[in-house]
């Protein structure tokens, strides 16, 4: 086989694929062949690099050159300049926003400097559709080690010692979960991977499955060995076609190598994995609802206990873990619990993958040690707030989480600190907001989401959340009263205490945390009838400055409802009763005469 002198890694995550990264690969290969270099340069499609803001990413190895926002037509330049002539293509390099200098090497990018990659260790490094690349990075060795050198209870002990906690949001100690499942005896047990990632703006699990599916398969087999299960199921939402594809390919390859199936590595241990598709209901991320959905029933939660570890899928003991939790397992087994539990804080060990989204410069996927501060994440890795605006809040934990503000910027991030601050770790979505975000609207957005996703089984969640949402709508329309604000708090507390499952119990969090942290803003909406961010349309009025308006008629011609009147070359006026506050006039006015009051 030819020995390649250079490797070109092209991101094949969903984000970069949407920006034609597959075409880049094809073009690169074509131009390489044209120049007779097909045996010297290897082009590899990898999983997500995490730097989605600047995708598609193309990384040149061994010199580590990091090209961003590459277009298919740039393939020729990359081959002819970089590969043949050895010159870097400067206009494709990442530009450091701080000093406007090109950064050629990914190691010197602020985005990567503070990261520690455990769960994402192979993402953006190997070809996820090639098991050989996974094996050459040590894939399946942890499974081999467990099967040949460790007893099931040793495996559980190791995971317990590592201090790993569930990465899906709750933060339940993984080792303990395994132990409970292992102690329940049954003729059949199940290992379930919860890949029903539903938080708005979160894509950690998808990226792991797309970038390193073998790590999940290996970890599920390890879990099966530890708890005594021979069947694994991945519950994945049908909206993740690429992740499904790559998992299926990976499962097939693992079976061909005998790493799944009967008598794995001559140990007598059998394990196999099947996929189960979800229809994308948020509540199915809750483990009892997930199990019902897999059984073909309605995706509704049931009261715990019995816990799935006692009676889960088809009434058998079932261990459910999240994708990212599984991705950590092989590393813990290979490197040891003592290595793992040195990373992180006292009660939260290891790293956490976050999906950075919102008004932040470097939108993307990051993996950082627990205990890092929000400031480091937002300013050093995330590159600060877009357009130099001011930081206002960051929403963590999705619809079950809350908003953290400036006063939390230096709080070390871990499970317990986030809960103390009124939010939660959640699965790892981090939505950053600047001064143009209205906190009432944000709370409303999440409540609308919960109303939509509530399964309707219990009254507090079905009706309570609806009422919360109605009150928020009333406030954002300028009809709210101070009583409404107190009532919001009361009702939120009732829902938290009485809802059946995790979804309902946490759904008022966005309301409570915004009430706590942005009380002034709520009061402004209610008393002054003002929205300082200019988001709540009912609280705004558009006005034309009579001294600035020259009567060009541009606004009047573009007003979709004919709310603007005035003679040519004379100052115009807006009829507030007709105006729908769409903002079309502001965009058209060349004289800056229209303002929002």
């Amino acid at each position: 086989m030819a020995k390649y002198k250079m490797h070109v890694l092209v991101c094949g995550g969903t984000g970069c694929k949407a920006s034609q990264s597959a075409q880049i690969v094809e073009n690169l290969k074509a131009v390489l062949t044209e120049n007779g270099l097909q045996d010297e340069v290897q082009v590899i499609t990898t999983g997500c690099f995490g730097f989605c803001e600047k995708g598609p990413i193309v990384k040149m190895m061994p010199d580590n050159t990091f090209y961003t926002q590459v277009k298919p037509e740039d393939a020729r330049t990359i081959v002819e300049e970089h590969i043949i002539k050895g010159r870097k293509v400067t206009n494709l390099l990442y530009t450091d926003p701080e000093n406007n200098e090109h950064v050629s090497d990914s190691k010197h990018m602020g985005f990567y400097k503070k990261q520690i990659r455990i769960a994402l260790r192979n993402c953006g490094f190997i070809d996820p559709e090639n098991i050989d690349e996974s094996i050459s990075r040590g894939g399946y060795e942890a499974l081999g080690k467990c099967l040949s050198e460790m007893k099931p209870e040793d495996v559980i002990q190791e995971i317990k010692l590592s201090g790993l906690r569930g990465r899906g949001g709750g933060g339940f100690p993984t080792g303990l979960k395994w132990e409970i499942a292992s102690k329940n005896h049954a003729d059949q047990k199940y290992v379930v991977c919860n890949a029903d990632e539903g938080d708005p703006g979160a894509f950690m699990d998808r990226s792991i499955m797309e970038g390193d599916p073998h790590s999940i398969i290996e970890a599920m087999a390890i879990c099966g060995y530890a708890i005594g299960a021979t069947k694994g199921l991945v519950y994945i939402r049908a909206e993740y076609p690429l992740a499904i594809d790559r998992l299926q390919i990976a499962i097939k390859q693992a079976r061909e190598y005998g790493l799944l199936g009967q008598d794995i590595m001559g140990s007598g241990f059998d394990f196999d994995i099947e996929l189960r598709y979800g229809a994308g209901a948020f509540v199915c991320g809750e483990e009892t609802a997930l199990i019902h959905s897999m059984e073909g029933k309605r995706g509704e939660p049931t009261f715990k206990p019995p816990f799935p570890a006692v009676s889960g899928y088809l009434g058998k003991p079932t261990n459910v873990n999240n994708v990212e939790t599984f991705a950590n397992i092989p590393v813990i087994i290979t490197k040891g619990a003592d290595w793992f539990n040195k990373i992180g804080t006292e009660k939260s060990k290891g790293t956490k993958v976050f999906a950075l989204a919102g008004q932040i410069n470097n939108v993307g996927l990051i993996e950082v040690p627990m205990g890092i501060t929000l400031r480091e994440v937002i300013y050093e890795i995330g590159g600060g707030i877009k357009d130099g605006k001011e930081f206002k809040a960051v929403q963590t934990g999705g619809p079950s989480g809350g908003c953290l503000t400036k006063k939390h910027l230096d709080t070390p991030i871990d499970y317990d600190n986030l809960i103390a601050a009124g939010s939660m770790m959640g699965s790892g979505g981090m939505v950053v907001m600047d001064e143009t975000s209205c906190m009432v609207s944000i709370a409303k957005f999440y409540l609308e989401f919960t109303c939509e996703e509530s399964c309707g089984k219990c009254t507090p969640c079905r009706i309570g959340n609806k009422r919360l949402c109605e009150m928020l709508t009333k406030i954002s329309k300028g009809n709210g009263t101070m009583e409404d604000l107190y009532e919001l708090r009361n009702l939120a507390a009732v829902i938290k205490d009485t809802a059946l499952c995790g979804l309902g119990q946490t759904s008022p969090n966005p309301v409570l945390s915004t009430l706590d942290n942005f009380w002034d803003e709520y009061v402004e909406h209610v008393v002054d009838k003002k929205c300082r961010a200019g988001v709540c349309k009912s609280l705004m009025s558009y006005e034309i400055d009579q001294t600035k308006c020259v009567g060009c008629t541009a606004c009047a011609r573009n007003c979709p409802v004919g709310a603007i009147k005035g003679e040519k070359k004379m100052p115009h006026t807006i009829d507030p009763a007709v105006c729908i506050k769409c903002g079309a006039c502001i965009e058209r006015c060349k004289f800056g005469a229209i303002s929002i009051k």
Partner: protein
Amino acid sequence: MTKVKSLADLKAMREKFQSNLDVREKSNNQEEMVQIKVAMATCGIASGAKQIMEYMMEKADAMKIRVVFTQTGCMGYCHAEPTIEVKVPGRDPLVFGHVDNKKADEIFEKYILNNEMVDGIIPVNYEVIDK
């Protein structure tokens, strides 16, 4: 399709596949490795730079020295092609001219392994603006 029958099997497989990912693995800690840049402009290639690079790659493998090979553009020493730049961790980079197989052997055995000087060093006659 071969089946993995034991942990030893798996490790052997890893060993076998590892070289395929070598280029990538090495790029993660370049600073700790010997770096060799081969001038691969037209004149370099015409004088046999490709062949010499391949030879050196094999040599490095055979001697089990971890080397990162990079192709570069013209270094400007067209009179002394093929030219290579060798950077051993902790030492200043050196440029060697007129490299052939014999010279390559010498560079590996004397300079890289034992830090003995070898003939054919081109003195650095320029400065780099951006460090």
